[in-house]
């Protein structure tokens, strides 16, 4: 069978998270439990495919998708019970560890962080801290869930631009790094390239060893299986060697951040 052939699935439910982010609950016809940080290719027949990290896996596969390009635009126009193709899960996820985990998520980086959080909580591991940055209070996803999480572990949120009702932190996510409880943690960073670059710089100032830093990388991707040649970072392919990389492996690659 062709490894690029998607399986037919359907949208069980969908709802708005923010003005430009929608969540899609998709029937998991693959029925394989994904590892936190892995991704799927979502396929719209006749339109195209897009690689998206999953956010949650229980009653189906949950994806929270920002409208950013052609295919995500089509996705946002879809309805409940519409057909969708899926293939995956692909790539290497975040390490499963007993160590304390500091999750640093920027914008649409929170959904993949959710997969780590839910995996930990389901194993009665709440050695987690979440530092989450968004553009504005309107752009925060999973607002109810964030409040539930706050009861179980430390959650700090910051926004680039506040509104009148916002009483929390204002500024980029590195502004709340002073809340980091334990520098002897694993740091999982998921977000835009510029945010990841500065997050790593700050962690290095705090003497966090390279080996304890993990980045979820993003590149243009087509096949998802390491053959189309698009997503390379040096000798690595984001689709099969990543998307999660230990920083020590990729830190010397000049095109890491752009």
């Amino acid at each position, binding site marked *: 069978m062709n*490894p690029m052939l998607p399986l037919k699935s359907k949208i069980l439910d969908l709802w708005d998270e923010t003005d430009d982010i929608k969540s899609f609950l998709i029937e998991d016809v693959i029925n394989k439990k994904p590892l936190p940080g892995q991704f799927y290719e979502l396929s719209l*027949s006749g339109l195209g495919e897009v690689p998206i990290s999953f956010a949650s896996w229980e009653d189906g596969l949950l994806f929270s998708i920002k409208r950013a*390009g052609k295919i995500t635009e089509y996705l946002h126009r879809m309805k409940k019970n519409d057909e969708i193709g899926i293939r995956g899960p692909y790539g290497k996820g975040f390490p499963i560890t007993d160590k304390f985990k500091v999750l640093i998520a920027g914008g649409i980086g929170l959904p993949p962080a959710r997969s780590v959080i839910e995996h930990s909580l389901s194993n009665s591991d709440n050695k987690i801290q979440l530092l989450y940055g968004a553009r504005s209070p309107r752009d925060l996803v999973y607002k109810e869930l964030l409040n539930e999480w706050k009861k179980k572990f430390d959650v700090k949120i910051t926004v680039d631009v506040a509104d009148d009702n916002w009483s929390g932190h204002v500024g980029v996510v590195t502004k709340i790094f002073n809340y980091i409880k334990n520098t002897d943690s694993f740091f999982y960073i998921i977000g835009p390239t510029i945010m990841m670059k500065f997050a790593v710089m700050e962690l290095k100032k705090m003497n966090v060893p390279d080996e304890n830093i993990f980045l979820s990388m993003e590149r243009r991707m*087509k*096949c998802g299986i390491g053959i*189309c040649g*698009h997503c390379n970072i040096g*000798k690595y392919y984001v689709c099969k060697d990543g998307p999660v990389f230990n920083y020590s492996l990729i830190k010397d690659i000049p095109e890491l951040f752009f």
Partner: protein
Amino acid sequence: MMFKISKKNFQNYVDFLIGKYEVWGPKKIGSDYVFSKLNNGQEFEDVRTVLSPKDLIYPPNEKLFEDNFKEIIVLGVKSCDYRAFKMLDDVLGIDSNYSMRRRVVHMFNFVCTEPCKFGFCTTFYGPRLEEYEMQFTDIGDYYLIETNDLRFVNDLFEKASDDDLKIALEKSKNVYKKMQKLNMDKLSEKIGWENPLWKEFSQRCISCGACNFACPTCFCFDVYDENDRYREWDSCILAGFSKLAGNANPRPTLDLRLRQRFLHKLKFHYENFNYYLCTGCGRCIEICPVNIDIRDVIRSVNP
């Protein structure tokens, strides 16, 4: 097993093959030789083509999820192109379209006995193959035929002697004598991300992507939908190759894209597979309209 066939009978052999299979070989179209379907044995000429037969196994554009592949024989394949398929196997081997065609397209190697103008195959593997379906060497009035595959053996074949093999080996050594061998010593380790050639090349490169399309080892492809799902050869030289949604681009300038092309061939692929993604066919050098030369990259590291 070793056989030989007279040049006169060789045409009849090609006719015999045409009777059983679809047979392709180098044919002059306009001013260039390209792989084309042969109608009779007379049409065959043992000439190195401008483009490799990569497209016969990995078409420039194809519908995905098809399973209709016909058995064909390709004559006049050169070792540089044959080696390239061995390399593509390591990447595209998991793809069903590619691997199905790989099984039904038979490539017959015709050993070069003279160097071609831009080739530098002796830097890597040279004109003879150790693994082949059929290997033909021009030894004067005859072709020496080496094969372990009885399917393509024919009554026109005669017994070959060790002397015939000796002549064949001498003929291929001629290529080694006349061709300049480049120094690849630890090149993958020594070649750096920074090299003044990237900028220099970028000042004259016109981003045509011909180097990628002429290269027998370039495998990158794009996937797009137009009712059905298709894939199409892509070029790392083009600006859109690594562009993400929102126009973010890890390689926004041409020098960075040229760097990707050369480092992929001479560093990254070596680090993953322990060989260079190049067979020294010289086609990228020949086809480049502005004389960008991969040999200059190699020499810049190992003079």
